[in-house]
């Protein structure tokens, strides 16, 4: 996977915002999400929204590895004529559900998708939204954090990649999110077994938050 990421960036020194998401995204796409690269808009798929948008190279590498688009697309990362930008565009990339990059948009959209799935009777499907710890400084997130438990959205999971990138540290996220009514867990952000076990947890009426901890200085 890191080789694919290097193909996009041209070296193996990837920015922290991308490498910190790699393990969580791999576990999601390899073990959790029911998605079909041959039919990326299948009605019965699970939905994943990369809310933070930043550092999407790991996301792109995984989508390419799983067959959503040719690996050759990675060669034109951020280049004129390429489809893979520094923030993903849903109109250009198969498998990308939301065009993100401005922080604090994905969770509200995820709440809407979760409501829509419920309205359509798609009760087995789930919505997973990934935010960064610094992204949670944006106030719009906290509207949606307040709302999701009220709506009983058990089909919604928020992953917080806590790589301690926010200069003013305002964690603990599990305490904050728990106080808003989310079922919270904190796991080692590089531990695949722990991530899988955390992502599987699903309550019928309570949204789940998984804080994937990436110790400061570690990518």
């Amino acid at each position: 996977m890191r080789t694919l990421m290097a193909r996009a960036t041209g070296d193996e020194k990837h920015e922290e915002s991308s490498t910190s998401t790699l393990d969580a995204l791999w576990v999601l796409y390899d073990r959790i999400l029911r998605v079909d690269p041959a039919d990326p808009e299948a009605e019965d798929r699970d939905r994943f929204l990369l809310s933070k948008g930043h550092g999407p190279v790991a996301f792109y590498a995984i989508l390419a590895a799983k067959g959503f688009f040719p690996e050759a697309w990675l060669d034109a990362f951020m280049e004129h004529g390429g489809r893979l930008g520094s923030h993903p565009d849903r109109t250009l990339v198969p498998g990308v559900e939301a065009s993100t990059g401005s922080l604090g948009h994905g969770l509200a959209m995820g709440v809407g998708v979760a409501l829509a799935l419920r309205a359509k009777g798609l009760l087995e499907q789930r919505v997973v939204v990934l935010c960064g710890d610094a992204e949670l400084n944006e106030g719009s997130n906290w509207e949606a954090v307040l709302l999701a438990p009220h709506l009983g959205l058990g089909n919604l999971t928020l992953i917080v990649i806590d790589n301690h990138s926010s200069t003013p540290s305002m964690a603990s996220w599990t305490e904050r999110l728990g106080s808003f009514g989310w079922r919270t867990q904190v796991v080692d952000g590089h531990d695949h077994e722990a991530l899988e076990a955390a992502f599987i947890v699903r309550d019928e009426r309570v949204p789940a938050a998984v804080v994937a901890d990436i110790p400061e200085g570690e990518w």
Partner: protein
Amino acid sequence: MDMRAAFGRTAAGLVYEDPRVALVLAEISVSAYFEETIARHPERTVNIGIMEQTMVGVAAGFAMEGFYPIAHSLSPFMSERPYEQLKLDFGYQGLGGTFVGSGGSYDYAAEGATHHAAADATLMLAIPGMEVLVPGHGSEVEALLRATYANDRPTYMRTSMAVNAHGFEVAPGRSEVLRRGASGTLVAFGPMLSRTLEACEGLDVNVLYSTSLRPFDATALASVVDHGTPVITIEPFYEGTAAMVVTEVLAHLPVRFASVGVPRAFIHGYGTWSDLDADVGLDAASVRRRISDAIYPNARNGSAS
């Protein structure tokens, strides 16, 4: 007919009629119009509380899943507070949705400028692809909402307390030529029509009525404009808002252009919307004076009437 009530009745009706409609509300208008709708269709009618950014984001989530979302609040909280969500979640992502702002430019006059939104149409026009509708009567709210809610494009509808004496058969992208004349062309938008007709009594002018800023009916305007005579827009929002769409039509014509609208200044005062109309020069008498000044700019005392 009251526009906000017309919106409430029509939006509720659409929830009942079309299972693809999702109504996302942020407290505003819930108790007046939507309690029964929420009780009957809680899966597609959601009052999320006072969080307008999330209202638009949630609406986008519904749109991503193939629903036709309708969101609504007072004009400043529908157009300004969640502006980036409108721009990105809908505009950039290419999703369709309907956003209905109530309160015109300063309908809630007694609340002060925190509740004014004379820039709403300007801001919405600045989002590529956002359609902007300006009904002038409750019946037009219903017609325009029904015509656009399922068109898979983002649409902002501006409703106001000011209404015209009569509703017209309106459609998005269509203007009506109501009068023909030789001295100039007036384009009245939405609720400005009745006072424009009153103001131009005795003047030899074309009068167009438009409820659609984008798409704008270029054909109708081009069909009546004469070389050398002025085109004057009568606008319920900041003056010059419609210039963006009207001047495109006039690019090849030697005409003067003027706008009669809300002056670009904060209002520090209270009363009713009609009190403020008089203060800012948008009552019928002021509109007549401003139209005359634009048609006859060299007339003594700035007026030919």
